[in-house]
């Protein structure tokens, strides 16, 4: 029982990441009709925003300490971060410790800008082009972005820990009288993504801007005929989608150390999630994200693996195939979208 509850938690947690990435992907697809293979790269850039903030906060000056030796036998240069000398070791240390949450503030404007530049500079020229061309250009862009990151940050994963206070485990089963411990940061991640998803849905549901965007997703031409400048709004939506992917990346860094190809790792998966959810459907993407996350977690349980060896390797794809064969347009897809 505990094991099952734990796997549900794991599934919700994995699902949060899938859902956040898929949400942005399907938003871009639904509004702009663009198949964005660079979306994984946006997730990755978000993660490296966290790395960058951590590095900036840890910028240090060096003091030569004669009593210690470095690897060449020369006197060791001891590094002290500037923030520690400005705010004192206590406060400075705490600031560095909180680098990832601080990075959220930093990442939002950066990601919106990245999204804006991407859309205005490149993607907008591809609205009328075939999906194949969109795939080629966004795939090229994804490669370029990840290679640039690799050039500056290397290929190895980079450790970006969560704040000390949010690092341990919490007993989430205490309320139920059970002993189920779960990492605090993963719980934070789950609630964070619920908040983001909620925010996006309310934004689309309750604001005029959102209403126009939703109408545009349903029927772009008609909305255009009403004299509403739908393109500008769509540009903003692209920025928002980029920010969502970026925030998902920032918050993900303490869970797994980011590396330059993490975007590609998530790309295929996020496409599967979007399509299983139904192309262009926001609730579908979220639903599919959590569903696949939970199923993936269950499939990795030993009890299940002993029945079907290797099921955890393929579960996502098996589920995708079954869903697409039984529900032609995914869980909540609309008719006629991306079927040509």
């Amino acid at each position, binding site marked *: 029982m505990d094991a099952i509850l734990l796997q549900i938690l794991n599934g919700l947690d994995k699902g949060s990441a899938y859902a956040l990435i898929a949400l942005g992907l399907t938003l871009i697809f639904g509004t702009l009709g663009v198949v964005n293979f660079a979306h994984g790269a946006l997730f990755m850039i978000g993660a490296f925003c966290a790395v960058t903030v951590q590095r900036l906060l840890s910028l240090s000056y060096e003091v030569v300490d004669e009593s210690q030796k470095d690897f060449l036998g020369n006197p060791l240069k001891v590094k002290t971060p500037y923030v520690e000398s400005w705010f004192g070791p206590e406060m400075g240390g705490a600031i560095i410790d909180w680098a990832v949450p601080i990075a959220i503030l930093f990442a939002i404007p950066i990601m919106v800008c990245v999204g804006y530049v991407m859309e205005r500079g490149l993607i907008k020229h591809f609205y009328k082009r075939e*999906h194949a061309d969109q795939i*080629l250009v966004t795939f*090229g862009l994804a490669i370029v972005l990840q290679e640039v990151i690799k050039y500056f940050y290397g290929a190895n994963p980079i450790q970006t820990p969560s704040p000390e206070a949010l690092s341990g485990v919490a007993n989430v089963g205490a309320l139920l009288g059970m002993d189920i411990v779960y990492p605090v940061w993963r719980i934070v991640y789950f609630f964070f993504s619920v908040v983001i998803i909620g925010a996006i849905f309310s934004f689309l549901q309750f604001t005029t801007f959102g209403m126009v965007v939703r109408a545009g997703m349903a029927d772009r031409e008609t909305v255009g005929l009403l004299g509403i400048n739908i393109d500008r709004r769509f540009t903003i939506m692209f920025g928002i989608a980029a920010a969502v992917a970026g925030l998902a990346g920032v918050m993900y860094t303490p869970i797994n150390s980011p590396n330059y190809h993490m975007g590609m790792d998530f790309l295929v998966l996020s496409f599967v999630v979007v*399509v299983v959810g139904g192309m262009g459907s926001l609730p579908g993407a979220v639903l599919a994200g959590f569903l696949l996350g939970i199923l993936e977690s269950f499939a990795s349980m030993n009890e299940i693996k002993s029945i079907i060896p290797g099921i955890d390797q393929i579960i996502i794809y098996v589920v995708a195939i079954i869903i697409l064969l039984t529900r*032609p347009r995914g869980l909540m897809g609309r008719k006629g979208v991306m079927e040509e």
Partner: protein
Amino acid sequence: MFGLDNKDTRMLLVVAVLTLCAPFILNPFPTDSAMAQFNAGYPDLMQRFVIFGIFAIGFNILFGLTGYLSFGHAAFLGVGSYSAVWMFKLLSMNVIPAILLAVVISGLFALLIGFVSLRRSGIYFSILTLAFAQMSFNLAYSVLTPITNGETGLQLTLDDPRILGVSATADGSIPVTSLFGLEMRSTFEMVVGPWAFQFNAGYYLAAFILLAAFYLSIRIFRSPFGMMLRAVKSNQQRMNYTGLNTKPYTLAAFVISGMYAGLAGGLMASMDPLAGAERMQWTASGEVVLMTILGGAGTLIGPVLGAGFIKYFENIFSKINDNVLHGWFSFMPDGLENFVVFVIHPFIGKGWHLTLGILFMLVVVFLPGGLVEGGQRIAKWVKGRKNKDDATPATKTPAE
């Protein structure tokens, strides 16, 4: 000629001349010159050019004609390779049965996957094919290791129970793949002054198969069947209401292109008897998609160009290192030399991905029809200039 019209015959002949003379064309620089780095005329890469050319030609029959974008075609290539290597292990080192089995098995595999995947269209179809291919890859890498030899890839060993032929040669080596005794790896080398050209048996076998595959693809493009496939892409509704059943058309196209992939896989194993699971990964499927789009989807020659383009970068640019750069620019003053090397450095060697990504973007932005369109524009420009020259002979500068 060959049942083709003049234009197609000319194209086939051009391709034939290019492939048969590839050892010359791809080695334009003297071996000792600094530019030799850019020579691509060595057996392995030439083989890769034509093999991936075949793969892309086959993919284009599906994608270029019907518009169905398969994201799992590498699975058929992988299955073809595994079949071929098993044939080498169990039957004989002759490449013919291996290639035949590769084509047949991948055709059957394509029939199975196509039958299921073609129940959906558009991106739903793409994801279904992707899912099947990724499943194949993941299983081949882990659970199916007894069949695929997992991470290492299926390879020949000294104790293969080969029915026709020996397990090991007299001197204790693994026998090599051959075509009725003609070893695939045997290379005839011709040295002309500072140039060296390599003529490899395996390459020529692959090149002849490429020509056959290309010829077949022209025939398919120009046939009623090919026209039906284009009609599928254009308007399925009208197809159905014109008494045509689209399903067997798309399935036939899928299986044919799967068999092309299997042929490529079998050839790859014949040139180098090892089949790695990575051949089936989604990145490999994505690569053939990129090759086709880059070259020009739906055009006959485009996919071959795209395949050559990508393989060239992968094999040539990845081998340029700082040392080579310093060699090239050593004529410059030291400071300038270092600066130039510093500027170029991110784009070569380990940065070859970056260069490729940039080129993808440039091609798709400026040449919407792919490399073929680039060729057409150049042809048009040359023609236009010629016409202009003809029209205004008075302004022609005699100095030329």
